[in-house]
């Protein structure tokens, strides 16, 4: 029988509050049944000796254990002071209204649970219910910060507050991808993804607790060096030089990528991870923009060549700093608009969230590359031969620009024109499922977290991909189009983890690669399936 875990159990000492047994996870179809008995590999006891691990089978942050009781008590005090600040306009004007509404009106109807891919795929573990962590926060807030809370808690829902509760809550806030699918189905409008986001902020902004990959090596490194990849401007330029050469070699097309062109119409912002992991994406953008005759530029200024803004996931202050830097760079270049490359969270960060942060001449128009590309592809200036993309294609919808920005159709109109065997996933568009790598997960791999991601948070996406290609022979290559760097990273990892390339010939890539692959002027294909070219002889 399934063991029930209640919010109040968060305070009770135990080695592991929620354990996933082999066979608990949602089953996968053939030929992947061998993964159904897989469990998350155990943490190495030596490696986790000094960190908090009492939530579940994995670790995302790795919070050091407090040395003594005084330290624990001090951390509890810090937590409460941070919690109080979440409800103050000086400290949290950014999200105060949505937070208050969501904190006060949940009816505990559980409608949101079934919408959450993490909950469903985990084998319906209670701690992964979207409202679970919200309810923990709500109870702490009601009991410890509201007048008379200690008495009313007996009636409204009790919880004890100790270091165990807090350490678990911090970890638990990194088991949700902030995809906000739960919020779309809540009959009230409560947004548990948002509450989770606020929990992360409390830990980061008050207690300095955040995963290394998104803070120290993420926003901090980006602000200091220029990119969360660690690339400084010189290294970025080198990478792009290399991309130009590579693209010419692969496609026979001479690519010229412009840097720091003052007065260009467009500043194109790429996720710098593309330059390292998927250089053909950067190259394909250049080919398309060049062929369309656009006036555009990249920026080599620190931060200007990396569109990412990990602050979106955990820290409003770091978020604001990165967004302001992006806008300042665009202002200095005097561009007419910023075009966001294939990076979902960067889209949402700079286009939507920073919209109420950037004022005056920093408020430079921002546009999604999906829109710019649609204009080019459907504009008639470039010629396409869709038969070149004669393989099954499905589209992944990045939550950050689909559900959070309503950019749904441009990428589809492109695919309908250039990919004759395009088919949708079920469900798709604003009802899509997250890739499982959202909110930083795609770049986080401490301890055994990557295995947790592949087995749990990305599992639903993997099932969706398999379903989309159902009926296609195993031996023909298939393409998952994921127009977002983080999603692409997560999808790459699931393909590798489940050996989907070997077993079902599933490949992945961005949208621009498909566009270039279908351009009539191309002499050679850009997309390869292993050693095979994507064009049929």
């Amino acid at each position, binding site marked *: 029988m399934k063991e029930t875990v209640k919010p109040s159990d968060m305070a009770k000492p135990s080695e592991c509050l929620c354990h996933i047994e082999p066979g608990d996870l949602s089953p996968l179809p053939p030929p992947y049944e061998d993964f159904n008995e897989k469990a998350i590999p155990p943490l190495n006891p030596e490696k986790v000796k000094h960190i908090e691990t009492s939530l579940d089978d994995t670790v995302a942050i790795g919070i050091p254990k407090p040395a003594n009781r005084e330290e624990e008590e001090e951390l509890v005090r810090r937590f409460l002071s941070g919690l109080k600040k979440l409800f103050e306009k000086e400290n949290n004007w950014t999200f105060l209204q*949505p937070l208050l509404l969501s904190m006060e009106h949940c009816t*505990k109807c559980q409608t949101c649970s079934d919408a959450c891919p993490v909950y469903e795929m985990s084998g319906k573990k209670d701690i992964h219910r979207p409202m679970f962590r919200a309810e923990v926060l709500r109870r702490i807030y009601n009991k410890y910060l509201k007048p008379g809370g200690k008495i009313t808690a007996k009636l409204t829902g009790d919880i004890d507050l100790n270091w165990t509760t807090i350490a678990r809550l911090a970890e638990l806030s990194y088991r949700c991808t902030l995809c906000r699918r739960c919020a779309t189905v809540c009959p009230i409008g409560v947004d548990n993804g948002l509450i989770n986001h606020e929990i992360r902020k409390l830990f*980061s902004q008050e207690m300095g607790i955040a995963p290394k990959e998104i803070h120290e090596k993420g926003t901090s490194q980006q602000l200091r060096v220029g990119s969360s990849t660690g690339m400084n401007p010189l290294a970025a330029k080198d990478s792009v030089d290399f991309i130009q050469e590579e693209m010419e070699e692969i496609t026979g097309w001479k690519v010229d990528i412009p840097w720091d062109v003052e007065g260009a119409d467009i500043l194109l912002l790429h996720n710098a991870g593309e330059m390292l992991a998927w250089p053909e994406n950067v190259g394909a953008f250049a080919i398309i923009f060049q062929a369309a005759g656009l006036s555009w530029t990249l920026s080599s200024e620190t931060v200007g060549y990396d569109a990412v803004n990990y602050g979106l996931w955990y820290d409003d*202050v770091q978020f604001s*700093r990165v967004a302001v830097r992006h806008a300042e760079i665009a202002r200095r270049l005097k561009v007419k608009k910023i075009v966001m490359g294939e990076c979902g969270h960067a889209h949402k960060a700079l286009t939507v969230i920073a919209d109420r942060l950037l004022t005056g001449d920093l408020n430079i128009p921002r546009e999604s590359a999906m829109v710019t590309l649609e204009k080019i592809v459907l504009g008639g200036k470039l010629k396409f031969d869709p038969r070149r993309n004669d393989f099954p294609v499905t589209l992944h919808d990045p939550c950050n620009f689909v559900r959070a920005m309503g*950019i749904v159709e441009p990428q589809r109109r492109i695919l309908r024109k250039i990919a004759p065997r395009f088919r949708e996933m079920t469900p798709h568009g*604003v009802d899509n499922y997250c890739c499982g790598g959202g909110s930083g997960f795609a770049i986080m791999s401490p301890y055994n977290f990557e295995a947790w991601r592949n087995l749990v948070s990305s599992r639903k996406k993997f099932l969706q991909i398999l379903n989309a290609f159902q009926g296609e022979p195993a031996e023909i290559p298939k393409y998952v189009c994921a127009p977002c760097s983080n999603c692409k990273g997560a999808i790459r990892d699931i393909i590798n983890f489940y050996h989907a390339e070997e077993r079902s010939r599933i490949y992945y890539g961005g949208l621009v690669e498909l566009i270039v692959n279908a351009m009539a002027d191309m002499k050679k294909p850009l997309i390869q399936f292993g050693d095979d070219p994507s064009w049929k002889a």
Partner: protein
Amino acid sequence: MGFYLLSYLCILVFFLAAGCHVYRQWTLPMHVRWELYPVQHEVSGKLVHGGSYMEDWNWWEKEQRSSFLNELKYMVPEILFIRGLWKENRKLWWVSFPFHFGLYLMIATFGLLVLHAFSVLPGGAPPAGGALRTLLSGMTVLTGWVGLILGVTGSAGMFFRRLIDPELRDYSSFVDYFNIVFIFLFFLFAFLACLFTDPLLEGAKAYTFGLLTGGDSLNAYAPAQTFLGGGTIVFASLLVAYVPLTHMSHMFMKYFFYHNVKWDDAPNRRGGPVEAAVLKNLALKPTWKAKHVEADGRKSWQEIASSAPKEMK
């Protein structure tokens, strides 16, 4: 007179508490955008797939269009029939819908009773007949009875669902049960009062008339004369005061969920009202304690956002 005083007091509490909720929402600082698509006021061409104005090339050069009709098309079935729950959580809908619709019909019945009271106000005593009053009386009986039957079954169903379904039970507190039982008792008393003493809601008419006139009686019969009638008045009055003090205030707070968060897609245009609100926010001075924030209570958000942190960990 005691019953009337209780009702007046409870109505006052309702308006004060609801007013506080609404006032607080109005005075909160403008937050960053956090809309969620589909945004229901989008024009039909976009709404059909959940798209936004940001799907348009150079969208900022165009005038932003929205459709109130589309919003209504969504809101009306959502409010009246709880369509979202029908779609996403059918087994709960079967009890939640009668419960909510029963409450709506109670509100409608009260509205009709007030109209009826107005229709007889000038003379104090009801002149016989009158097409309007007959219509109002008929509608009152209809909405009242249907509402009570739905309400009794819906609230009982909600109670048992919460009790039986482990998904709900494990997260329910005393207050969650108390709220439903409270509403159930109101429906039950009102239902029994109608069944045994007041099938045509004459007592309800008399009491509502009394509410408007400071206790003048409409006729010889007063509902408070019976145990069931008195209980109904007490429960109804207390319920009116209680709803805005609990999460049940979502009945009207949903407006803010939708209009101020989920569908708030207003872009920031230079020199516009959004920009003015943003500038006000940027002048606020945070006190977050983590080292990398570098807040000291004197630096504003604007200053902090324009600075690079010295502390990198």
